């Protein structure tokens, strides 16, 4: 199967205008591709920009240079240059992202948080809630929590809501930032199965996993981010 995500000469830096214009280079010359059905694990020392890379691919951060090409609707879209509405369309249908932390919305129950990406994609509300419930059940989130907003949940419970939201829809490309970080062994195993199934159905996965065991179970290939650092 061919590439569905191509990162070409990607650079990312921050300019802190209120700190005297301090420049913080984070990524430079990052170049690799991910095929459908691959799980590529990003490695490198803490602070080398792994999370920043995922955020830049998702266009949550603005790239400073280079391209992030995502195969969307039969064409390549450059997430680093696409207008906002195009980025939203790619996120809705093609590119999923599970961050390290859930951003909770006041008053919205866990079940609706998970069903939201489906409803946004046009799935009828009833079916969306059924699929969200099935996903929460798979991740062992107690049913009594489904109707509650996740603000008061434990870290592990919030993270499972977050993962359910990322996996409720079969995105062709998935970005995973430490999805198993705050989970116990049983729930970690459930998430590993979920990720493996997504890969087997042909999803391209790009992820950060600190846990060596999880990494060994999931990775079909790894990319060390430090090898791309441009000479200072």
């Amino acid at each position, binding site marked *: 199967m061919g590439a569905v995500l191509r990162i070409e000469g990607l650079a990312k830096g921050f300019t802190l205008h209120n700190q005297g214009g301090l420049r913080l280079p984070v990524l430079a010359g990052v170049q690799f591709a991910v095929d459908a059905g691959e799980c590529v694990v990003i490695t490198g020392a803490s602070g080398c920009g792994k999370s920043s890379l995922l955020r830049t691919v998702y*266009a949550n951060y603005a790239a400073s240079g280079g391209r992030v090409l995502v195969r969307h609707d039969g064409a390549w879209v450059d997430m680093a240059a696409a207008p906002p509405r195009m980025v*939203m369309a790619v996120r809705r249908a093609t590119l999923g992202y599970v961050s390290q932390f859930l951003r909770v*919305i006041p008053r919205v129950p866990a079940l609706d948080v998970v069903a939201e990406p489906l409803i946004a994609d046009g799935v009828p509300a009833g079916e969306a809630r059924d699929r969200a419930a099935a996903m929460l059940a798979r991740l062992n989130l107690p049913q009594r929590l489904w109707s509650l907003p996740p603000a008061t949940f434990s870290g592990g419970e919030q993270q499972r809501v977050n993962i359910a939201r990322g996996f409720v829809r079969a995105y062709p490309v998935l970005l995973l930032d430490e999805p198993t970080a705050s989970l116990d062994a049983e729930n970690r195993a459930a998430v590993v199965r979920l990720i493996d199934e997504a890969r087997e159905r042909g999803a391209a996965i790009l992820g950060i996993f600190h846990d060596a065991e999880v990494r060994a179970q999931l990775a079909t290939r790894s990319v060390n981010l430090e090898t791309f650092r441009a000479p200072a």
Partner: protein
Amino acid sequence: MPAPDPPLLQVRNLAKAYGAIAACRGISFDLWPGEVLGVVGESGSGKTTLLACVSGQLPPDGGQVLYAPDGAAPVDVLAMPEPDRRRLLRSEWGFVHQNPRDGLRMGVSGGANVGERLMAAAGWRHYGRIRAAALDWMARVEIDRTRIDDPPATYSGGMQQRLQIARNLVTHPRIVFMDEPTGGLDVSVQARLLDLLRALVRAEGVAVVVVTHDLAVARLLADRLLVMRDGVVVESGLTDQVLDDPQHPYTQLLVSSVLQV
């Protein structure tokens, strides 16, 4: 690439000055159907003036506001005859004021506030149907239906704001302009209103331009943001990108000034 669907609203080079002070200069943006556009900035940045000009409430000094419903040929709202513009504002457009008293008629009942827009805009005449629609909308904005005959002066601030939203949405407008819709409310009441707004905007597929100084409100409601300072747009883009990776010095200052709780 998707079909190039045309924007519903195109604002071009809008300008408005109060004497020597330029409240808005050279402002241009597009709004697509079903999209929520947030306008953020501090007091005095010109965001409320922009909203008033774009929504036809305040004549600007220059620029165009082109409205094109259903892919029709764009019409410049600012050049429309006054009666046509008033009809548009009552039917296909809505305006939610920060203070519900500016958007409601305080002397008539809650139900009449919702119903009279149906009569004025959609020409409804059948009392039973109007009352049923008003009751339905009171329920959708979570107002107890037994309060339908009470005047809004007897409602709480949060209820008044929800009633104002019902009054605007009852005619299924294509665009609703909102000026600090959660501004005067307690935090718990704000959360409820925001949640309700999110759900209603999505269910109705209405396009929204919402002005707010509250970045948390902008993050929850808006797909895209315009950041204004001193009457100009200094930065624009996807909401989460503007807030998580702001590029302009002023946006960086705004984002870094938010208190964490």
